[in-house]
């Protein structure tokens, strides 16, 4: 999945921080809100996009409207948002335009508006097909609602659907995971993400975990569920192309791949991240500040954005490796050389040799990739590549 090096195109990320109600495991920047705030937010968001683009018409080949739950917005707001994006960016013909949706919030009207606005990919937060588990997670939808929504989207012509699944959930047996996964596969979505539950600080699950009322699934069971999914998906014709993602051939998420390939992306909205011209930015996390910031005329992007880091060559090398290794095909040594200006062995020969020796990386042909064992403990592998100093 190498990118086309000749045409510089960017990815566009738009953050919608709203949801009906926060799930018990969620530590994303999202919350329930009233209609007025939502409208003010979209106004500010559109201004942010327009101000960034001015009259440049930047070429973009992916758009991702993520959240939160973008589908909680009234369809007109999505319509306006898409219009603004199209005014600011010159979207390529094959542009991948994704919206995240909760199965409980999509109706016929919304599906039509999305389709007519040019959105061509839907990412559904399914998580599980077991109603007890859905309840335990604090999801607002049921198994039945998901099935209905899925069918609706297919009927409205969406031919690129992702389903997000979670495993290692409290009280989830291996068999229950197997059932959910196999039923999803039988629906043949183009893309399936499968995430292991991480109990994050500041979530209700975390509090329960501290109190002891939530028991973590053992690492052994977690890995069993993971590898079962990987094997099953491959068996059914999916390509397991990223640690937590699988897709039918040609259906990998092009937008998400940008994150793992040091490609550019411009992020808009509360807390949104961007990577532009070697600089990483992060928008404010404070809603009031955000609304205030984008209420008046804006002069330049530099003043508005919070720069987190101007990447050094060292940063680039490290990020290239640890993001790139998430892709199971691995990193291309040529790409490294092109980006960093030096051979990957100039900088990481010891680390690569050590990881290969430990059976966690495979180094063959033009690529270096995680082994199956390496995937399980990928953090261990990746942090090898974060070095204090570079020997010259």
């Amino acid at each position: 999945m190498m990118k086309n090096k000749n045409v510089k195109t960017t990815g566009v990320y738009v953050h919608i921080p709203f949801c009906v109600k926060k799930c018990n495991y969620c530590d994303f920047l999202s919350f329930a809100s009233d209609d007025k705030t939502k409208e003010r937010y979209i106004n500010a968001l559109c201004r942010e996009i327009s101000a960034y683009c001015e009259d440049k018409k930047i070429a973009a080949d992916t758009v991702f409207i993520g959240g939160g739950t973008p589908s909680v917005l009234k369809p007109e707001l999505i319509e306006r948002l898409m219009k603004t994006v199209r005014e600011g960016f010159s979207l390529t013909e094959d542009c991948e335009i994704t919206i995240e949706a909760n199965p409980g919030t999509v109706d016929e009207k919304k599906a039509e508006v999305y389709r007519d606005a040019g959105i061509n990919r839907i990412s559904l937060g399914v998580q599980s097909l077991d109603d007890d588990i859905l309840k335990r997670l604090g999801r607002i939808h049921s198994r039945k609602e998901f099935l209905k929504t899925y069918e609706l989207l297919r009927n409205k012509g969406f031919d690129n659907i992702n389903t997000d699944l979670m495993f290692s959930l409290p009280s989830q047996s291996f068999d229950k995971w197997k059932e959910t996964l196999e039923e999803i596969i039988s629906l043949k979505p183009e893309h399936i993400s499968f995430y292991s539950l991480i109990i994050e600080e500041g979530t209700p699950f975390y509090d329960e975990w501290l109190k002891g009322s939530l028991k973590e699934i053992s690492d052994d069971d977690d890995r069993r569920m993971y590898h079962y999914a990987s094997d099953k998906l491959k068996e059914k014709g999916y390509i397991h192309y990223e640690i937590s993602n699988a897709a039918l051939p040609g259906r990998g998420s092009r937008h998400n791949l940008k994150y793992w390939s040091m490609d550019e992306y411009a992020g808009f909205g509360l807390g949104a991240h961007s990577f532009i011209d070697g600089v990483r930015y992060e928008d404010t996390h404070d809603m009031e500040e955000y609304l205030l910031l984008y209420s008046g005329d804006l002069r330049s992007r530099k003043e508005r954005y919070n720069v987190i880091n101007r990447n050094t060559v060292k940063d680039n090398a490290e990020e290239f490796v640890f993001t790139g290794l998430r892709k199971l095909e691995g990193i291309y040594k040529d790409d490294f050389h092109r980006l960093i200006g030096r051979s990957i062995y100039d900088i990481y020969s010891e680390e690569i040799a050590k990881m290969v020796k430990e059976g966690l990386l495979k180094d063959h042909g033009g690529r270096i990739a995680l082994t199956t064992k390496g995937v399980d403990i990928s953090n261990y592998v990746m942090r090898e590549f974060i070095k204090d100093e570079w020997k010259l």
Partner: protein
Amino acid sequence: MSYRDYIRNFSIIAHIDHGKSTLADRLLEKTGLVSERDMKEQFLDNMDIERERGITIKLQTTRVVYKANDGNEYIFNLIDTPGHVDFTYEVSRSLAACEGALLIVDATQGVEAQTMANAYLASNEDLEILPVINKIDLPSADPQMAIDEIEEMLAIEAHDAPQVSAKDGINIDVLLEAIVNKIPSPEGDENAPLKALIFDSVYDNYKGVIIYTRIVDGRVKKGDMIRLMATGKVYEVTEVGILAPGPVPFKELKAGEVGYITASIKQVADARVGDTITNNDEPTSEPLPGYRQVQSMVYCGIYPAGTEKYEAVKDALEKLQVNDAAFVFEPETSQALGFGFRCGFLGLLHMEIIVERLDREFNLSIVTTSPSVIYRVTKTDGEELMIQNPSNLPNMVEIAKMEEPMVKANIMIPNEYVGAIMEICQERRGRMDHMEYISENRVVLEYIMPLNEVIYDFFDALKSKTRGYGSLDYEFIGYEQSKLVKLDVLLNKELVDAFSMIVHESKAYARGRFVCEKLKDIIPMHQFEVPIQASVGTKVIARETVRAYRKDVLAKCYGGDISRKKKLLEKQKEGKKRMRQFGSVEVPQEAFTAVLKYDEK
């Protein structure tokens, strides 16, 4: 009357926690030069570590003025002494600078091992010992018991000993008068050639080494050329003065007085405790008796940990040595730990203090290896080696004889613990030499023990078994032949020389098992199984396994938030820095000290 008739030079000696520092504070408060407002907690102690441990490491001497009931002003030179067995020699030199000593005894505890040890040291220096019963304010105080014990056990008359409470300031006046009346004034001839005792020295960034001295004969002033008799080095005096307790310059110091001398001396090792200062142009014929070169008893390796720089550790050790003549070090190399230093200490406490100072004052991350004593090894070809690093032990087939240093341990305990303590002494290969009931419920046990058993965990075990009531004092008595073996530790089948230790044959199995169990708890899970083995020669005597971990993966990245992931990896990496890498095994630093700690079984 001579000026000397109005001088009293004395130390305060006590068992640890019997209230020495508090009493010193109180004396300073009741005399001139220090106001109540200036009083800090534990006025005499000036190091953080000392305050925490409640013991005095470095001496600090103070001169105060007391207006006595007879209407005269007396100069008191209060000479502080360190309070631990490791520093016996320093204590003896401080005592040699005095005519008298206040022997503090806690009215609730009575005489303890260090009370006795210190009282003996003081009588060896022919000091007038003035017993003082402290802590009479406590409900459980039994002054008569303390008096009886002093008379019975130390043969020191104590029936009219001042009974005080340093904490509440009770009867301090009585004590001050007793100091004037009971402690003799110094003798000496101020017109004789200079003869002065160095009883301590500290390094000062501006003045160089400040020598703490007692003038025995003669005089000294700025501009004099002095000679330090043991080292033979000659210096020009740049300043003399008194200690209040900070240096206050005076024109001259003369016989009987206590004060300081500076002479552009670069390190404290050049002004050794116990050395005699004389005038280079008009020298004294004989140095003062009792000078002894400091002998390290305990050695260990100190290595930079993780990414710590060798040079940074070297600098810090040099700085510490400038102020601590008893601390020695030289470079060495370990296969496991790379370049580092072999360091010599007076004892285990001294070692712990240095290690803590490296951490606290220099913010260094270091690894210390198992402490070792010096073994005397005679090879089959007759060559004799002094081995302080287990790695340097010759092959067993080349060894004809091994000897280890022995100490006489003086253990004082309440009688109900006799059984338990005899047991731990026997476990540590102790031979009982003597046992005596010194009072109805107190027993002194004298054991001949190998020093390596004492430095390992004996003191911790003693404290633990006696709920803190046991006390220990020991002295080196010589070498003795012994059946010793080298115990090695292998991680993932690779020998880690930093864990190697020399142990008695009979202890190898238990120690091997203990070390393996400890390491199993401390070494984090790796992505592979880590076998931990203890071996003697090629024979594995104990084994544990750290099982492999299965999962360390971040399922999701959030909307292109790469920095979050990077921070996580960096944080994990930071944790790794505190680890030491052996082959492919990562070992946390605390592993090296944890394998030495006493474990209550």
